[in-house]
């Protein structure tokens, strides 16, 4: 009502009597501006929208999701188990009963690959996740605080880095016994260091940038500056490092299983299955192919996801 009165005061005529020719059409751009404002407005919404556009990355994500579901549910509903031997059907090829065939004890390889996925994927993802959290926070804090604190914390990292992984494994096994958790712990202890170093180096240079100083002057807390301004800007290397961590952990687990540390027969991981198949490689190569294919496809899809993610996270690449 106030507006209408104002209109009358300014123009000298009531609002309802404004002649039609006084109105102007909105340009398309002006019309759009209302509409555009409804769409995603934050960096993370944009990142997700961008990620979805990358078909390969999205397909990889779906594949991994299905693999995880299969690893959980297939062993529950399958008539076979990872250690159920059927000596009548040893080294069988693919069939309806055994899609991936059977191994030298007549165990169903498909079910064993699914059991193996439980171990391998858990180890891989857990290692990558711990590596991500510990490495990023440690490196970020070192780089951000700097000075003497950084010096001391990074010397600790150097010392940890100089100890061979196998030594950690032995020490940790002595304390926690030979199980999958010792293996996970050993992998993490020796691997987060690389991530920490990388993140520290990036944060060290980013914190001198003016946008970080502007955030400081605006009164942003240290945590806010570290995560929302510094670490977000080194997501590229962090993602690459994390996706590489998964296969690395899978292989380390396989290697440790091979030397008798970690899971023990008849339990299966992809690594131990590949190892078991070695002796019969000339006769039954397919027994090797299935677990190796599982590892490769996982690696490949992680690689695509990582690629898509680091592209989607960088607005300049959109």
């Amino acid at each position, binding site marked *: 009502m106030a507006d209408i009165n104002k209109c009358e005061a300014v123009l000298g005529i009531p609002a309802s009597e404004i002649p039609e020719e006084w109105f102007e059409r909105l340009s398309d751009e002006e019309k759009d501006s209302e509409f555009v404002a409804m769409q995603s407005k934050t960096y993370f919404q944009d990142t997700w929208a961008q990620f979805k556009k990358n078909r390969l990355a999205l397909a990889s994500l779906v594949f991994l999701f299905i693999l995880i579901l299969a690893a959980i549910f297939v062993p529950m509903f399958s008539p076979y188990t990872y250690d159920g031997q059927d000596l009548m059907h040893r080294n069988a090829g693919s069939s309806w009963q055994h899609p991936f065939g059977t191994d030298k004890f007549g165990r169903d390889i498909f079910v064993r690959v699914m059991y193996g996925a439980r171990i391998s994927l858990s180890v891989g993802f857990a290692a990558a996740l711990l590596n991500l959290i510990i490495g990023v926070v440690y490196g970020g804090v070192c780089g951000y605080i700097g000075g003497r604190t950084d010096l001391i914390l990074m010397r600790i990292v150097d010392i940890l880095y100089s100890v061979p992984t196998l030594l950690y494994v032995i020490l940790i096994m002595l304390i926690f016994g030979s199980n999958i958790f010792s293996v996970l712990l050993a992998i993490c202890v020796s691997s987060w260091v690389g991530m920490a170093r990388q993140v520290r180096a990036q944060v060290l240079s980013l914190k001198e*940038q003016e946008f970080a*100083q502007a955030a400081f*002057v605006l009164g*942003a807390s240290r945590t806010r500056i570290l995560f929302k301004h510094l670490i977000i800007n080194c997501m590229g290397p962090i993602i690459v490092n994390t996706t590489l961590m998964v296969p690395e952990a899978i292989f380390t687990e396989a290697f440790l299983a091979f030397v008798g540390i970690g899971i023990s027969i008849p339990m299966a991981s992809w690594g131990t299955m590949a190892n078991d198949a070695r002796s019969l490689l000339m006769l039954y190569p397919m027994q090797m192919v299935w677990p190796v294919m599982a590892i490769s496809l996982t690696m490949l899809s992680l690689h695509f996801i990582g690629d898509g993610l680091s592209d989607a996270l960088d607005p300049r690449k959109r």
Partner: protein
Amino acid sequence: MNGGHYVEISHLDVIYDVTKGVFSPKQLVHAVNDVSFTIEAGETFGLVGESGCGKSSLGRAIVGINKPRSGDIRINGQDVTHLHGRSLHDFRREVQMIFQDPYASLNPRMTIGEILSEPMVIHGLHRSPGAREERVTELLRTVGLKPDHVRRYPHEFSGGQRQRISIARTLAVNPRFIICDEPISALDVSIQAQIINLLKQIQKERNIAYLFIAHDIGMVKHISDRIGVMYLGHLVEVGDSSEVYFHPLHPYTKALLSAIPISDPDVGKSRKRIILEGEIPSPLNPPAGCPFSTRCPLADEACRRMPKMQQFGSHQVACHHVNQSV
């Protein structure tokens, strides 16, 4: 308020420790050396000096990016060098800073909307999302950008537009004092004037005080009420803008002014070109006594002592030979 000045800086020292390695001898850069001056509310104080003379260090000390070694900074009667917690957080709303490099001063991974609403999030202003959105739109309009720019990212803008966004970001907290650290030196000449005009207009509307840092004294004269001239960490001359520009007293100020091309023939005639000899000394190893003595045409025995800041008419000058012509 003591003295009644809005900003009062006294005997400020900023020292960087640039010692390399743990066992080498200490190396200190005395970037700001015993600097004192005042700024009134709503006033523009221009700070000029060659690259490396400590202008940014001074500005950064005022907003607390680096801690001064000694000295006092009082803003609105409050000693801001010893603020903590709540009062420090509130002080952040009083004083803001605009940076030199428009390409580095905006986080590349935030939308303009996020950049402009962050100050409000930090200080709990305009709490509802709708109110924030409205405020962001208003800020964009103030600095001459379109509201639908909120969804874009910094890399989609030109240098001048980014500097406008930086200005809008500082305005989000309604500061009364903005430090402009060479806000235009990275921009095209044609854009420079636009940004200067925007800053002036904002100042007129909101009565904001500026500390305007630049190395071009001509530009500084144009927008400042008063000018301070820095050399090697020292403030060597302070005075009203046109006084300093047309009647410089310190030999360094005279040299600076003689170096710029003059379009005004009256001024040009009265001004002799002074060519400074030698390099600017390293701040790691400054000369004893007057900092300018190694290059000053008037330097003599007296200049072995550090000159005090003294009042000459409306100027304050730190020189033993103020009344001699160069």
